């Protein structure tokens, strides 16, 4: 079971955003996508999540083409933690997390299960004390945690319990302190170990090497490399892509760039 992206191309206003992208997010694996700003990472995520249509190429979820899956069905198969915009009205933290419970009618669905799952994700993200707070009064990092909890809740929906589910994370560690960087990625790791496929966009190369099963490097809309972490480093390529002198310590599995 996997999400298959094959030969995806995207043009925007005449300029090429994505060139012939093919990759696979396997269930039980974390695929990390790294690359400089403007490389097309979020555009690729939007195509994979079904928010945008590619000019060419296909995306398949567990073998089914994405455009054959309805919008509400997609929501039961994958959840996305995007780079979120502010919320205008004063929703509470628990309101926002609850939005991840994609049952069509909360009051008709299994309430006990909802409360159990809700309690579980709030504990996992240590949000219990913040539940009654207004979302807008939280710090940037706390808000990200709330969105992460929401994405986790969405994966626990009662639909498609037999199919594989997927979690997309777009720079989940942005604004997070180092403790929460590790917490979030550990949660993702745990989910992957239980069979969820995780697609992770991240800037920190060392975190990507530590947590991912495979890493893809995207530069100028093209996948330059896609390998296991230990084979990932390529001095010439990285210097070219990032414009920095870099070195790699194989024992520590760490990339140094300053």
């Amino acid at each position, binding site marked *: 079971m996997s999400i298959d992206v094959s030969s995806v191309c995207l043009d925007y206003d005449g300029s090429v955003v994505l060139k012939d992208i093919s990759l696979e997010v396997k269930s039980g694996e974390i695929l990390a996508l790294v690359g400089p700003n403007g490389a097309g990472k979020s555009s690729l995520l939007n195509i994979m999540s079904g928010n945008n249509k590619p000019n060419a190429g296909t995306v398949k979820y567990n073998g089914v083409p994405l455009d054959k899956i309805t*919008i509400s069905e997609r*929501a039961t198969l994958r959840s996305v933690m995007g780079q*979120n915009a502010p919320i205008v009205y*004063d929703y509470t933290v*628990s*309101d926002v997390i609850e*939005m991840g419970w994609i049952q069509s009618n909360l009051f008709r669905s299994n309430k006990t299960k909802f409360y159990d799952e809700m*309690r579980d994700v709030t504990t996992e993200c240590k949000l*219990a004390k913040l539940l009654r707070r207004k979302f807008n009064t939280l710090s940037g990092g706390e808000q990200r945690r709330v969105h992460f909890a929401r994405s986790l809740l969405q994966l626990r929906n009662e639909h498609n319990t037999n199919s594989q589910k997927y979690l997309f994370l777009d720079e989940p560690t942005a604004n997070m302190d180092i403790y929460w960087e590790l917490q979030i990625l550990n949660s993702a790791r745990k989910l992957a170990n239980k069979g969820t496929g995780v697609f992770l966009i991240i800037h920190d190369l060392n975190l990507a090497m530590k947590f991912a099963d495979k890493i893809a490097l995207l530069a100028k809309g093209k996948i330059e490399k896609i390998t296991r972490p230990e084979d990932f480093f390529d001095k010439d390529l990285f210097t070219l892509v990032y414009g920095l002198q870099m070195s790699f310590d194989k024992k520590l599995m760490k990339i140094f760039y300053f």
Partner: protein
Amino acid sequence: MEKILSLFNIRINFLEGRQFLLLIVFCLLLIFSLFVGVSFGGIKANVFNLFSFDTATLESQVLTEIRIPRVLLAGFVGASLGLAGASLQGLFRNPLADPGLIGVSAGAALGAALAIVIGSETMGESYFGFLLLPLAAIIGSSIVIFLLFSLTRGFGVRGVIYMILVGIAINAFATVGIGVLTFISTDSQLRGLTFWTMGSFGGANWNLLAPAMILIIVSAISLLRLGRKLDLLQLGEDEANRLGVDVKSLKLKVVIFSAVTVGVSVSLSGIIGFVGLVIPHVVRLIGGVKHKFVLPGSVLLGASIMITADLISRTLILPAELPVGLITSAIGAPFFLWLIFRIRMQ
């Protein structure tokens, strides 16, 4: 920590319960205002006499022919404007969206005015002509909402000021249109025209009210079912889509049903300002921002407030009558200023 978690079930239940209770309180308030609205006026009337089969008295004639339709009309218009305001504020993710402020009511008024001046000459007073008025108003409000929609595409956050500016332009355009129509209209048409710009429930009668009630009820029910989706839309269009909302169809539904409720209301009562802006905010302040609560809350509170405003307008300077728009604007304008101040502070 454990303690908080163990309280968790009860707390969520409590909140839902509290909002449910508030809706019941709003219901009681509406029943009370209906009762007071029907009882008081130029002639004091006892509602319960209606059930005494003596329909020939002046009192019961006043009640059935004049006052009850008028109070019902006020209630339906208040509910429509409150609901349309709440829905549009949700759709545009903009706390300043109000059917009056952003030009939707003006569009409806222009449509209605066009129907009066041009339509009455071609159609006469036929049955079709009397349906033409609400239809023209609905078309007018739909055009404005679609226009706003394309002009503010993908907005939400940046659009707060922009949308108001577009609304000013549309309002100005509609004023010009109505002005030109006033100029070329005949005397009897003119009397009809001035009514739109002032806002009044004086013209209420059962023939007009019955079809309007059906249209408003149908679109109100359709809007009330969209609460959860409007909540998800607050996260942004992409996020809502990722949570399973067909955003395009949601937008289309909100636009059409708001246009119908506003269009029908304006065609019956003219432009009544600020209700659509103020009511949803009051509801949010009292009980929270979830649309499952805000939408029905705005319906109930909008109806009660409008019935009360109409009662004030027709009893304050008896035997004369104040335009009801004057009352709602007198309350709404300061509230609007306060709202702008609050947004600036944030």
